[in-house]
């Protein structure tokens, strides 16, 4: 059998984007081996270009009719395309903001990029993985590269501590997850393809079995660890605080998006028999995440810990879309992730720039930054206010869409909690803005008072500046001009057969359901 024939049978074209990322990865690695330290002038840009080309090929596959490849192990449907795009772009944004940071720490940049690309490949495969083994392998690829990345600043004890914590908790949760899918494998009588599992379980007469629920709980524990939902969040603040900031940026967006992709695919296609149960568990997780994330964030004094708790809370908001399980629910989740990508990475880019200039990330040290660096102040303020859901920034529209979808599906309780905790979140986001903008010159912190002149010509400063500006522009305008993104999000859901086959959640709140029936989506699409 010749290669072309084989590849046609396997439909290998579906993983072309991942292939491009892998080639980029190899080029980066080999180029670094050949050229040595001076390769840093080229490799990051090669990686960015590779990732963008991969994203471009994802777009070309948008209308693909043959999503299933590798005999069912990989499903390149529209929802996976969107998630893979989010992960690839989050890596493409992470690289420019990390160049200067890694350079300044004196470690090798090419290796950093290689590991980051490996994590990206893992995340991308995870978004499309349609088979238990494939899921586990790609999950571990993502996880292990993430452990390496968190410990990348090997001379910094905090980075080492973070890596160790992350590794231990991550390994434990991987084991739990693996145990969950092994139960699933057993219940289905040796079936590993997600789409076939349910049918097998039913034909084996095990659809009422307790084992299925136990498998579900274990699987959710593994997923919740990845998306950092309360109570599986304990690693987040410590790891975020200790890890190199660019890595945190990637973990909070790319890794989280991969977790959501896994959650959607696994829960929707392998656990339809216990959909009430997983919705119930996720509702609890979402409520806990929103409440705890937002409340504990109030007390943080370190910017990175603040963003860690904020990202926990954001995961809670995102879960609303997953829980309601309507078309609008899924697409609001996707939409929010796309916006979250830019606002969160923008926020981290600003934190990185500030850390590079002053060597600290305490919130108090931001006092009076407006006088010294208006651009940084503006960008960080916009990103934080967008995370807080202030109009007319992108985050406002994202949240409105999530709450809209939640309300449409009758999840009134979740929406109300989301709204109340959003108000709480405004307090801590605006506290940072206030610290930067309001303080008088005499109240300026020492770090800001000694703020060095900006030298944009240093290696890696330009890319950092460019990504801050891109994030700023996107966060300011993506909400107002949201239509293309909305179409992308709704298209990704309506083109995905898996999501079309499922029934949405039944309203949990029994309060007069006949008064608020769900309108059909057709009536909404005016």
């Amino acid at each position, binding site marked *: 059998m010749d290669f072309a024939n084989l590849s046609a049978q396997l439909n290998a074209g579906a993983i072309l984007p991942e292939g491009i990322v892998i080639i980029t990865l190899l080029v980066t690695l080999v180029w670094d081996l050949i050229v040595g330290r001076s390769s840093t002038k080229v490799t990051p840009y090669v990686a960015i270009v590779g990732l963008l080309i991969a994203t471009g090929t994802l777009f070309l596959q948008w209308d693909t009719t043959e999503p299933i490849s590798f005999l069912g192990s990989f499903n390149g449907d529209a929802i996976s395309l969107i998630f893979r795009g989010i992960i690839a772009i989050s890596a493409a944004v992470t690289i420019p903001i990390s160049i200067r940071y890694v350079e300044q720490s004196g470690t090798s940049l090419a290796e950093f990029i290689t590991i980051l690309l490996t994590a990206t490949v893992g995340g991308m495969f995870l978004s499309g993985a349609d088979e238990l083994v494939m899921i586990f392998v790609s999950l571990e690829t993502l996880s292990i590269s993430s452990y390496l990345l968190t410990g990348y600043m090997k001379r910094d004890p905090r980075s080492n501590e973070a890596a160790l914590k992350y590794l231990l908790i991550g390994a434990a949760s991987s084991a739990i997850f693996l145990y969950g899918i092994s139960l699933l494998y057993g219940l289905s009588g040796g079936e590993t393809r997600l789409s076939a599992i349910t049918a097998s379980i039913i034909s084996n007469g095990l659809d009422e079995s307790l084992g299925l629920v136990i498998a579900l709980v274990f699987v959710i524990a593994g997923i919740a660890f990845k998306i950092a939902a309360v109570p599986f969040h304990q690693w987040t603040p410590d790891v975020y605080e200790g890890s190199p900031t660019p890595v945190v940026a990637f973990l909070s967006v790319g890794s989280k998006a991969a977790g959501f992709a896994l959650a959607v695919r696994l829960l929707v296609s392998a656990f339809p028999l216990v959909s009430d149960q997983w919705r119930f568990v996720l509702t609890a997780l979402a409520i806990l995440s929103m409440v705890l994330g937002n409340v504990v964030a109030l007390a943080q004094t370190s910017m990175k810990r603040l963003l860690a708790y904020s990202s926990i809370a954001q995961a809670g908001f995102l879960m609303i879309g997953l829980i309601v399980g309507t078309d609008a629910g899924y697409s609001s989740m996707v939409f929010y992730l796309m916006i979250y990508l830019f606002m969160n990475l923008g926020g981290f880019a600003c934190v990185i720039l500030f850390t590079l200039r002053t060597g600290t990330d305490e919130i108090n040290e931001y006092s009076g930054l*407006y006088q010294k660096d208006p651009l940084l102040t503006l960008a960080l303020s916009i990103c934080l206010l967008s995370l807080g859901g202030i109009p007319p920034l992108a985050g406002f529209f994202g949240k*409105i869409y999530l709450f809209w979808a939640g309300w*449409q599906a009758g999840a009134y309780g979740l*929406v109300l909690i989301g709204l109340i905790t959003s108000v709480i979140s405004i307090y801590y986001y605006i506290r940072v803005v206030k610290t930067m*903008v309001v303080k008088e010159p005499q109240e300026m912190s020492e770090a800001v008072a000694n703020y060095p002149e900006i030298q944009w010509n240093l290696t890696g400063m330009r890319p950092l500046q460019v990504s801050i500006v891109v994030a700023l522009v996107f966060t300011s305008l993506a909400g107002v001009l949201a239509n293309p993104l909305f179409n992308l999000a709704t298209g990704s859901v309506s083109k995905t057969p898996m999501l079309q086959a499922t029934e949405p959640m039944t309203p949990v709140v029994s309060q007069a359901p006949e008064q*608020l029936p769900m309108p059909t989506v057709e009536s909404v699409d005016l």
Partner: protein
Amino acid sequence: MMSTQFPWLTVLILLPLVAALPIPLLPNKYGRTVRWYTLSAGLIEFSLMLYAFWQNYDLNTPGFQMVESYPWIPQIGLNWSLAVDGLSMPLVILSGLVTTLALLASWQIKDKPRLFYCLMLVMYSAQIGVFAAQDMLLFFLMWELELVPVYLLIANWGGQNRLYAATKFILYTAAGSIFILVAAFAMAFYGGDFTFDMQALGDKSYSVAFELVMYGAFLLAFGVKLPIFPLHTWLPDAHSEAPAPVSMILAGVLLKMAGYGLLRMNMEMLSDAHPYFAPVLAILGVVNIVYASLTAFAQDNLKRRMAYSSIAHMGFVLIGIASFTTLGVSGALLQMISHGLIAAALFFLSGVTYERTHTLSMKKLGGMAKQMPTVFALFTAGSMASLALPGMSGFVGELSIFLGFTSSDAYSTTFKAVVVVLAAAGVILSPIYLLSMLRQVFYGDASEAVAIPGLTDAKPREAFIALCLLIPIIGIGLYPKLATQTYDATTVALTTQARDGLSTIARQPMLDIELPFMAPTVLGTEAQAHLVD
């Protein structure tokens, strides 16, 4: 509904926002370029506004005019739909006038001027947006849009306790505005047809219980902003700590957003629930008036005293809304306009005083009439308007509310008597606290107070700003039709609709719900027929 005419309202909303964009890039020598630039943007906006309304607004049509509607995000039903009617048009002009004058009044802002003027322009847009929005989601967006600018304006350029005041402001208002969004969602998804369009939402028929819940939600949201008695505590802090130009807008326009909301959402859209809540509104109004007047008397801080006086004056608006008579509702709107002008004038003048004396404590002031005769004269005129001296707009507003409420046939005579007597007590209290304020600050012996060297009188610019506000006050006072003709057609239609709600309840004496407070004694058909004439 696509209109073919020129999209005036869109231009009016977007112009300040667009004008704010280049400010960070402007060269700013001695802080002059930016302030002239912003002021001219404000003036252009205001004159465009006047021109647009002069050309396109027909005073005799009660319904919406200058309608524009473009789909913005159809997936969630968000439309950029704007229109004005008699309720919103005068308030748009009021916000244009007050904000433009506030821009002129912020001459002394030397610290971070670019940020200041950017935020002022964003607020300008948001205010017009709130009054012109015809889509509930758009209304909510505009309502929220104004939060952060106000927060930053207070927190940056405010007085001693500015951070506390600003945080309190944003948390109260943001928490209150949750209810707007929830109510918008609930109403939009109610029944089969999904829409956020305010008119369509008003036309939907809801169950009475549902309307009551929605009414309560809106009342909470607007009650924070208006403010209504137990939810008012942010206001004295915010208004007294804010810099004078921001206080002008806060008291002059932002409170009116809540009054407008009450008229638009509660009274117009939920007219079936209005009769149940109207007695509560009247009572809350009385509480506002009496409580705030008494508290105002105890304040030593000049701006706090005026902030409490604002709360008292908003109480009259509540009574007017509760009256079920055209006169009362018109009075409520007139009271909003007049208070907008008066409060802006008084806060501006107290800012002028503060700039010279650097204190707002009335104990430390005294006998300044000799040194600052112009400020004294203007301040006196403003206070007289505020205490409802005949010939000033405040008098007309309060009088028509009293007349409207007294002539209302929706309440028992006892209830009306109690409300009117207590509210009248508030009218007596307002001269007490305002005149004692004038006495402490301007009369008396200057030697008793802290000596302030080099106290200068008002500059021409400052006198001009105060006059721009005082002339309409006196104009409306002498010839109320100046203001009333802008909204009469709409308030008549609105009152008729509210009375329909009243008579619906009259026709179904057996209610399926408990009355929240006391049932309005409902008018008989004869009286109704009489009123229709």
